[in-house]
């Protein structure tokens, strides 16, 4: 069930000028949240930002023994910046968990999957890694960022998945391979690795390239998509992306996790 509750900020951890994690009180959201789902957060009770902002539930965790959940945030504008400025203990309105999670219930023991993260798209993949590890499903992480310091939550990924399963690409080569994340996934596929399914989250150009790669390789995908959202629960009809069927997909309720084949990437 989706709940609308005021949750206290347990802790804010800064990674660099633009990136931070916010840990929120669990409320009834943490226990219910599945990997790929998101919450709508009101950052401030004023007029700027005016609408709530969408954030993936990045992890379900505890802070100093207090149950909570984590959002990993890149500050790109007024809402994300405001979210990073709250004092610990401040209650903020949170609506969630929302949307269709990554499909994982159908995975079975010998299945192997890949996780592809671009930039801040790492967020939903942390909780996904945790759940896959719990289920014993082997998963390879392909994670691309601008540079080493923008590759976040490495210790968690490496703990859940095993360090040997985590491969990185950076624009400047400061971590892993110099280049794009789709390049390192492409190399792995060319080297003969195959996956039951590829889970991905990242910017549109990454999605577009990846959709092509998966299509060619005949591999199923599940993408955690983004679009601007006013409500997050299917009533404003603002968050649509064009579908291959000529219809528009309501990303907040039909997604955010959708197979790439659902989207008409030429119109995004």
């Amino acid at each position: 069930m989706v709940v609308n509750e005021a949750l206290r900020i347990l802790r804010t951890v800064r990674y660099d000028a633009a990136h931070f994690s916010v840990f929120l009180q669990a409320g009834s959201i943490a226990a219910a949240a599945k990997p790929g789902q998101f919450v709508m957060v009101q950052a401030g009770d004023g007029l700027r930002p005016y609408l709530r902002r969408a954030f993936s539930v990045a992890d379900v965790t505890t802070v100093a023994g207090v149950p909570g959940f984590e959002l990993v945030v890149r500050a790109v504008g007024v809402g994300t910046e405001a979210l990073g400025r709250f004092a610990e203990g401040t209650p903020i309105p949170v609506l969630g968990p929302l949307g269709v999670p990554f499909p994982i219930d159908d995975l079975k023991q010998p299945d192997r999957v890949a996780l592809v993260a671009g930039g801040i798209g790492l967020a939903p993949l942390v909780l996904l890694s945790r759940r896959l590890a719990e289920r014993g499903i082997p998963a390879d992480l392909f994670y691309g960022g601008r540079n080493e310091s923008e590759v976040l939550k490495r210790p968690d990924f490496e703990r859940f998945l095993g360090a040997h399963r985590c491969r990185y690409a950076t624009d400047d080569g400061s971590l892993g391979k110099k280049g794009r994340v789709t390049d390192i996934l492409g190399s792995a596929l060319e080297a003969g690795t195959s996956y039951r399914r590829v889970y991905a989250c990242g910017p549109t150009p990454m999605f577009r390239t990846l959709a092509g790669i998966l299509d060619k390789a005949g591999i199923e995908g599940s993408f955690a998509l983004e679009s601007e959202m006013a409500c997050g629960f299917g009533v404003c009809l603002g968050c649509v992306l064009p579908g291959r069927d000529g219809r528009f997909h309501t990303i907040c309720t039909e997604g955010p996790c959708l197979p790439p084949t659902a989207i008409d990437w030429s119109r995004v």
Partner: protein
Amino acid sequence: MTVDLSVHLGRLQLKNPIATASGTFGYGLEFAGFVDLGSLGAISVKGLSARPCLGNPPPRICETDAGMLNAIGLQNVGIEEFLSEKLPKLHEKGATVLANVWGDTEAEYRAVVERIGDDPRVAAVELNVSCPNVVKGGMVFGNDPAALHALVAAVRPATRLPLVVKLSPNVTDIVTAAKAAVDGGADVLSLINTLVGLSIDVETREPKIGFTTGGLSGPAIRPVALRMVWEVRKALPGVPIFGIGGIETVEHVLEFLIAGANAVQIGTASFRDPGVSGRLVRELADWCDRHGVARVADLSGTLKTRPRPEKTYV
């Protein structure tokens, strides 16, 4: 003190003056987890057309200062699916339903209203006249008093339900529009719909909305909406009014009632807080109680204006 929250908008009787605005409350059912749908004055559902409509390509929305722009393009499931899938459930939950409708032509408007007919599960039909008149080259029905009058008159015979006409605020004189709608057969007026606005991404030099312009809603438009409610109430004191535009708090509700509305509709605020409409019903009762107002209906149109001064020169 028990406060009497009921209001009458002509034949349309509501248990309280807090309704929700079309396009901001889905088909109502999406809010069942946040609000007791039966506790609201009324629910105006997403604008319905004769055929299901796919709406506009994205981006459809963007935030602006104290508001947002939208150009959803009136995406909706169509009147058939509404009547077969949504309305029975709304009825079961005790909701008072306003069927908000639109069309590209007079005939289409009429067709969808005829399909509703006198359905007793619908409390009133609400005509959204902010739709471009395809026959008249895209000019908006609601911005031309003659076209508006003709449209309302054409639709009027199609139902015996109360007919609410929701006016466009993008006009020189809202009173002329209001009169045209009332002369055409409107029982109730809803004001206002969104103001037409534009917002630009300066890096790409593209409009932030795919459709270029969009409808401005939210707190930014409240002063304009309030002014129009007051103007119409003054000119047409007998015509019941739904006040709409940027309402978020009980004080905003009261502003609209005092300006002359008989009830209000909560719009964009339901995106920020899906429970806001239910809470406002309780807060309005509390406010009236604290202020010794026994009947909320008595608040309507009680604005005390001062005589306007003449200009004085030295």
